[in-house]
């Protein structure tokens, strides 16, 4: 069987790897972005000089041949679902028995005047990075539009090269559509402390043309302020990269609609990762979840389904992580910007203002619902087990040390956290017990 995968990102590559583990089919991966799989999440580190491009490739180049995964560097321009043929830009066609669409996302543009000028890009792929690199030479200021996870990464990139940055952020506090208020304010403070000109409550009105087709300033909608700059980064979110398929007979809403087996409406065609939209997302989940981990899980699930196993896609308990300049962030379970009515949030913040722990529980049965961490690392498996088993929040606090994943010798805060939490609700939390890896292991096995 010929299996063709379009897209060599984490989703497409996960499918290819698992197909190889599970079967002996012919596997071809097509991408027009790069010859090999690299880690998109590491784009910023290439620009900042932490790594070279080749350091971001998770597998050495020999890996693909050794595992008989054919790589094609070309752009797919058309699909014929009847004849099962792909048309490629360089003129070839390719036959498939099964097709996997792992097309990823593209940066959002909301029709701003000037959005297509030179010196305006998003931050999504290597081509963007190459342009940003070229525009950085002698750059006086960069304006970044949009304050999500990619916006802050782009800001940090310029910051690392001492290029002044102005951020236009629609929200009143950084990323407060996702982060609860205190965490959002912590990150806002951190950004300001780093000398980034953060303009909250600011939308972009237009990007000014210097007369030669280059961006030379950005104008804010609310204040009318004009910020002179030599580059504008558009990081107001991403959306599925599916425009070229809209007329092809594929069912598309925001993304390509898939069922729980990741099948599209066309037979033998699957869609996974950023470009897929679940027809029936599980409770508490969104239809399109454009993150690394879901791409990896969909990729693996898709391979099983292609190989005839009947596996429903189930991403399990929500988790995610990020880093805001120097503050690490992790979330497990359901932590919304505003907690649901029957959820109670307990929040502790370290006196340095750069570490915090937020724990949510259900007031009806006191079961744990979520963890939100800033500047402190928690152990994924432990949190997941507590969440899965709907453990009582008192038991969670009594054993909070089991979750600690900070490096050895770090100051422990569990006692202080328990005290602070006791003051915030009428549950009387006991002092967390001491812990070590052996206790963690036996907890996980139990």
């Amino acid at each position, binding site marked *: 069987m010929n299996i063709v995968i379009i897209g060599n990102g984490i989703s497409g590559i996960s499918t290819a790897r698992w197909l190889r583990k599970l079967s002996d089919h012919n596997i071809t991966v097509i991408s027009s*972005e*790069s*010859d*090999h799989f690299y*880690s998109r*999440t*590491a784009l910023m*580190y*290439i620009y*900042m*000089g*932490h*790594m*070279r*491009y080749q*350091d*971001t*490739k*998770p597998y050495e180049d020999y890996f693909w041949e050794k595992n008989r995964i054919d790589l094609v*560097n070309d752009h797919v321009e058309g699909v014929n679902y009847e004849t099962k043929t792909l048309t490629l830009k360089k003129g070839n066609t390719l036959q498939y028995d099964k097709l996997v669409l792992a097309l990823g996302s593209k940066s959002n543009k909301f029709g701003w005047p000037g959005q297509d000028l030179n010196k305006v890009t998003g931050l999504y792929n*290597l*081509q963007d*990075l*190459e342009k940003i*690199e070229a525009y*950085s*030479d002698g750059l006086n200021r960069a304006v970044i539009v949009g304050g999500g996870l990619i916006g802050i990464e782009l800001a940090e990139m310029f910051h690392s*090269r*001492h290029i002044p940055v102005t951020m236009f952020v629609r929200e009143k506090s950084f990323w407060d559509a996702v982060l609860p208020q205190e965490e959002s304010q912590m990150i806002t403070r951190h950004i300001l402390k*780093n000398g980034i000109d953060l303009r909250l409550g600011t939308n972009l009105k237009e990007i000014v043309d210097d007369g030669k087709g280059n961006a030379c300033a950005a104008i804010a909608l609310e204040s009318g302020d004009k910020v002179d700059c030599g580059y504008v980064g558009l990081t107001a979110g991403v959306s599925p990269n599916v425009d070229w398929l809209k007329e092809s007979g594929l069912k598309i809403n925001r993304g390509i609609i898939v069922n729980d087996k990741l099948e599209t409406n066309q037979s033998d065609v699957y869609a996974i990762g950023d470009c897929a939209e679940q027809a029936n997302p599980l409770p508490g989940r969104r239809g399109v979840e454009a993150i*690394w*981990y879901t791409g*990896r*899980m969909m990729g*693996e*699930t898709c391979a*099983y389904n292609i190989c005839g*196993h009947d*596996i429903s896609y189930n991403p*399990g308990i929500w988790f995610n*992580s*990020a*880093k805001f*300049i*120097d503050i*690490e962030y*992790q979330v497990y379970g359901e932590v919304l910007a505003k907690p649901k009515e029957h959820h109670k949030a307990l929040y502790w913040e370290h006196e340095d203002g750069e570490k915090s722990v937020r724990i949510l529980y259900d007031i009806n049965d006191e079961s744990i619902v979520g963890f939100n961490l800033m500047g402190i*690392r928690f*152990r*994924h498996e432990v949190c997941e087990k507590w969440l899965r088993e709907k453990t009582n929040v008192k038991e969670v606090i009594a054993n909070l040390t089991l979750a600690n*994943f*900070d*490096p*050895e*010798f770090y100051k422990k805060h569990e006692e202080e956290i328990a005290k602070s939490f006791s003051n915030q609700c009428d549950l009387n939390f006991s002092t967390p017990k001491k812990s*070590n*890896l*052996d206790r963690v*292991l*036996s907890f996980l096995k139990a």
Partner: protein
Amino acid sequence: MSEVYKSMSISNPHPPFEDGVQKAMAAIAGIGLLILILATIGVESISTPLNLALSIGLMSIGTIGFAYRAFRIKPAGIKNNGVWFSSAMSRGVIGWIAGIVITGFYIVLYWYEGLLGLGASGAANTGLVGFFDPLAMAIKGTPASQWFVYGTLYTVAILIFGVRFIWRYRHNRYQVIRTLSVMGFQLFFAYLIPEILESLNGEYATKWFDKDMKNMWPLDYDMFDAWHINNMSSTGILGWGFLIFSLLMIFVVSPFLTYKYGKRWYCSWVCGCGGLAETAGDSFRHLSDKSMNAWKIERWMIHSILVFVTIMTIAVVYGYLGDGSQYYITRTMFTMIVVAVLVIVGGAFYYFMNKRKDAKKDLQKIIMGIAAVIAVILLINFLTGSGNAFFIDNYTFKKWYGFLIGAAFSGVVGVGFYPLMGSRVWCRFGCPMAAILGIQQKLFSRFRITTNGSQCISCGNCSTYCEMGIDVRSYAQKGQNIVRASCVGCGVCAAVCPRGVLKLENGATDVFEKTIDIRNNHVQMDTI
């Protein structure tokens, strides 16, 4: 898009100096170095005690001041900006020049000490060695040697770059405490105490431990040489005590500590070679080769050297032992002890490999085979009454080991190649001590690096900054714990990981199955 990005990193060189103060600090360190160079080339008038203090002082102030501006005044956090844009740190022109200069210095140090001004046959020292005479007189009451000069500069380097390292990682207490430890061990156990003991106790005391009290066999490869043993056994209770202590270290204390904490207790908390690599070598850690091929070469090299040092040591001791009139043990007893140790080691290996659920069994055969071959050859020679343990003259091994491994590899390549192959070239490819501790770490240690569930984003920071060239990411992205013989537990992979995926830790309950879990296998086989 083809692979044009290979060159991307050099398209925007980061400015090498951030501000005027840093330039000034570099200049101050430069003046200190210049004084040292002038003294080395024999400018008589420079060679005064005051100038020696000035030279070391200026180099220290300059380096520490530079680091202060680079790290201490900035917000705490990972500071790898521009690493791959810097010529010195990315095998650029400056990197190559530095590599060649340091390598040259080591060649002179080991084989042309006269060029450094060491007085031949009793003549007064001149040049660099002469420059250090006043300090040597002050500490131990004798003139300097090239090794005193080297030891002093080595210690100074660990101390000043240690300060730099601590500032650089000041948000990470593991790094801070570990660095204080290597600084302390170097300053006291490898420098001050041996030098002072020498002045108190004449020539004997230091000859127990070859200038570095914390080295043990096989890093201290002549620990069992006749002169060494003689020195220890002829200086009463202290000497004997030290001999027994050394043996306990090798056979009891070290395996126990490695069981408890992994080889890191030595390699990145105590050892001087490791100490220099972690401090002065910190800027070059990312230059280690992460490829599968490099790993293969590493395993062959380091284990061959371990076999080599074992054979050499057996041969040397066999060579000087006789019928028991001079030493307490005879050649017969020694042969029996060695064979017994080899059998025990081979057997222990077999036992632990069987217990480990994920071990490769072919290795088991190789190791047992090697132990058997050594034992058999030794026995043949012994039974035929040969004076040589392994057919060849006993001291030939020693001569070659001393030259190839002891000097050329551990010194010249080991430090000279920092700017070219990373800071742990010796520790990774050459050190027989690291080989033994690594085997213990792999076989029965509680230590591992845990990966945090499914949080890895495959970014590659961990692999890039692993000085031992371990492809940490290849494990992390699978969600598998990392248990590698070569891991020195420096903890930098865990520090640089932007998603908090890695944690160095110890646990007793799963010693033989700690790498079994693959946490990122999302579809569980039992659901199929």
